[in-house]
């Protein structure tokens, strides 16, 4: 799974394959999610392919972010979205 687009370059390690998750003894008000910042060239299907291994899961990401993404074909670099785990 991708971690974030915030990692600087300059020879720093690549953490884009980091996998994560969370669970609680308390009632979980919503599934855990990872925060991801949109990069230039990203699309929801590309992110879904990277995160879930299936580009068709883009709708899962779209539905988790309908407060900030109104059109799944229009996402912008710098937008921080939720990636459901």
């Amino acid at each position, binding site marked *: 799974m991708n*971690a974030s687009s915030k990692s600087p370059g300059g020879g720093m*390690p690549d953490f884009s394959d*980091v*996998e994560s998750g*969370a*669970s609680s003894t*308390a009632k979980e*008000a919503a599934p855990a999610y*990872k925060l991801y910042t949109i990069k230039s060239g990203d699309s929801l299907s590309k992110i879904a392919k990277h995160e879930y291994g299936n580009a068709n899961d883009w709708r899962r990401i779209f539905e988790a972010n309908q407060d900030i993404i109104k059109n799944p074909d229009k996402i912008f670099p710098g937008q921080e979205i939720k990636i459901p785990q």
Partner: protein
Amino acid sequence: MKASTPVSVAVIVAALAFSMAACQKKEDTTAMPTPPPAAAPAAVDVINVPVSVKQLTLSNSIDETTKKAATAMNSFVANDTIYAVVDTIGSGRAAIKTLWTYHRNGQTAQVNETVQEIDATGPASTAFHISKPGGWPVGDYQVEVFVNDAPATVQKFTVN
């Protein structure tokens, strides 16, 4: 009439004495019930306060049921899954976030940022984990915990 007066007085006195004894006995058996013991002092109320972090523990394994770390650690190896167990007190909805970063030569790389929203009714443990299929780069790391986007605690660790 005169001869019977002492007898009557004696009978009356005896009757009164018996009656008083009976009343006294009745009073004894109908004594007021013992009041219940005073209520124990209320425990410190950690329920009706907003969620806050009590403790952060890092480990490479946890009990999946209790979410408790097997052993507190601050040094890991490349193939470890790294857990951050966030113990909280308080109640209500809260978004608990872990921000994992890597540090080298004054530079910082973001490793991961994960959020778990909880609806707590008291003390709780929320376990976050990260893993890297290719193995963790050796170096210095840090995990910072936020509650509703407010910094709560931070802990450094290393991968050797």
